[in-house]
């Protein structure tokens, strides 16, 4: 876009979508902000009205609040670690020449096509179920007591399911990056006496930095709002053990019909997302500039 004319044209062409996006974002945000200062209960409309910050205070004083923040951050951090480590290892494996490469790659990517509630149901009833899950069968075969995953390790179970869903995404992005690594650089490192581990640390990992950053930033956005997996499997419990912020907000809105408090929670979720995004950009954002 070099000339004045193409620049102007480009702005005109972009205007509709940018405008639409702005409205799409601004209107819900403004409404949420508005409702967060209102008492609004569709079941009991008589007491509706402006209530100041009391929705926020109620949300803060909810015993589930701190749990939900902690769980949200735990899910984001653990899933990122699992998908990045697993994704790099899988990508390294898939980058090796082998028979049926294309087919294997499609298989690896396929979990990404499964809808979250479906995936969660499969994990809940076929894999992690304490009586007839595959894992329980395996435990019994080796003579161990089956684990009641959702009862005893609810958050870990959710993390495993979500990580399984996002692993293909990370693998795919990292594999593409890996394939663009120059062959002569690898050979040069080999001649320079770098063994496999050193080649990985000094050549492959720096080369993957940008892809890793993309994975971290994109996944963070989606992992902050994990909902379906929790609803289908543990329903936030036992207690608040697997309740995260989006789940808490939804609970307030759809079970207790406390729209005001739910909106306050939504605004807090927006603030939390911005804090996380700030630190994520501080930590890895510079990799995008190169």
């Amino acid at each position: 876009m070099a000339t004045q004319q193409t620049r102007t044209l480009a702005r005109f062409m972009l205007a509709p979508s940018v405008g639409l996006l702005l409205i799409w974002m601004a209107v819900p945000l403004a409404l949420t902000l508005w409702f967060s200062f209102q008492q609004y209960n569709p079941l009991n409309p008589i007491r509706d009205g402006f209530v100041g910050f009391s929705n926020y205070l109620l949300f803060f004083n909810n015993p589930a609040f701190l749990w939900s923040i902690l769980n949200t951050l735990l899910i984001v951090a653990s899933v990122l670690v699992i998908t990045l480590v697993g994704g790099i290892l899988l990508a390294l494996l898939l980058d090796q020449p082998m028979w049926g490469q294309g087919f294997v790659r499609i298989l690896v990517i396929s979990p990404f096509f499964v809808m979250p509630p479906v995936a969660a149901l499969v994990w809940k009833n076929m894999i992690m179920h304490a009586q007839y899950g595959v894992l329980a069968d395996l435990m019994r075969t080796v003579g161990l007591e089956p684990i009641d995953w959702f009862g005893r390790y609810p958050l870990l179970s959710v993390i495993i399911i979500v990580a399984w869903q996002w692993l293909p995404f990370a693998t795919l992005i990292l594999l593409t990056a890996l394939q663009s690594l120059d062959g002569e650089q690898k050979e040069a490192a080999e001649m320079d006496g770098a063994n496999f581990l050193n080649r990985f640390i000094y050549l492959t990992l720096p080369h993957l930095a940008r892809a890793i950053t993309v994975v971290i930033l994109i996944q963070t956005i989606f992992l902050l709002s994990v909902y379906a997996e929790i609803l289908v499997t543990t329903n936030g419990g036992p207690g608040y053990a697997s309740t995260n912020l989006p789940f808490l907000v939804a609970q307030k809105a759809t079970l207790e019909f406390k729209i005001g408090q739910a909106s306050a929670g939504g605004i807090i979720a927006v603030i939390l997302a911005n804090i996380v995004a700030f630190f994520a950009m501080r930590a890895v954002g510079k990799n995008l500039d190169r």
Partner: protein
Amino acid sequence: MGKIVLKKVNKSFGDTAVIPGIDLTIENGEFVVFVGPSGCGKSTLLRLIAGLEDTTSGVIEIDGKDVTGEAPAKRQLAMVFQSYALYPHMSVRKNIAFPLKMAKMPQAEIDRKVEDAARILNLTNYLERRPGQLSGGQRQRVAIGRAIVRQPSAFLFDEPLSNLDAALRGSMRIEISELHQQLKTTMIYVTHDQVEAMTMADKIVVLNAGNIEQVGSPLELYRSPRNLFVAGFIGSPKMNFVTGPYAQARNAATVGVRPEHMTMSTSEGEWRGTVTVAEHLGADTFLHINVDGIGLVTARASGEFAVNHGDTVFITPDPNRIHRFDANGNALA
């Protein structure tokens, strides 16, 4: 300290033998150039020596030690790649230091060696830059720097100058030659450019379809090419080949005359022809001449020679510098 011996080295990819079997001895301190057209197996041969490819059969010895199955790092060789293969996220200093770091050398010694290499290669002011911030010639020097700090028993160059522009290529050629004078280490240099081969080599190995056509010093190859392929490959512009009655009269299937071994005249001579293209370079004049009964011939006149398209010229091949070849393309004595 850098003698490399290849014994019956064969490399096949599936059923295709890229290198059917090569015997070659490279003496310590020699500058050997592998030259040949694309796809002749010269790069593959270099990679076999480097250990980046496995030999299908045969033995590679370095300093009398069989290294055929050894990993590249164990062979004490350093390679300069066509794409330079610098590590893009490391500074020049770290690039050059990388092989030393891998060898677990003490940091003080690494620093000293990197500084030395940078001084030799005029890179001292660029040590903290990334490869992306350097020009092609500077990157090339960093790649050479990374090779020399290891003090290898031999250097391998894989078409190192082909990504540079003509002027830079000329000066880098001289720099590499000087480096060889200075270090006196064995160097193996792969190129398809016969000018590079002629100017730099102690010994040229001409390869064609995976076979060695001839081995010799540049001038040996120029003066007495062993066959048609070498005769056509060495020398620029290419040697003229004449078949038919003219060759038969000299008891040969083909006769070769280099463009510079002809005398030209506008009045009289052995061959009469019409100029199709005249290239006036100032120092030389190259004439493409359609000779009656012989065909297209390229001739070189020293200095300026005032003829143009369509003019008639006479040329006389120097009878003492005619090359004769038999029906199989081998040179006749």
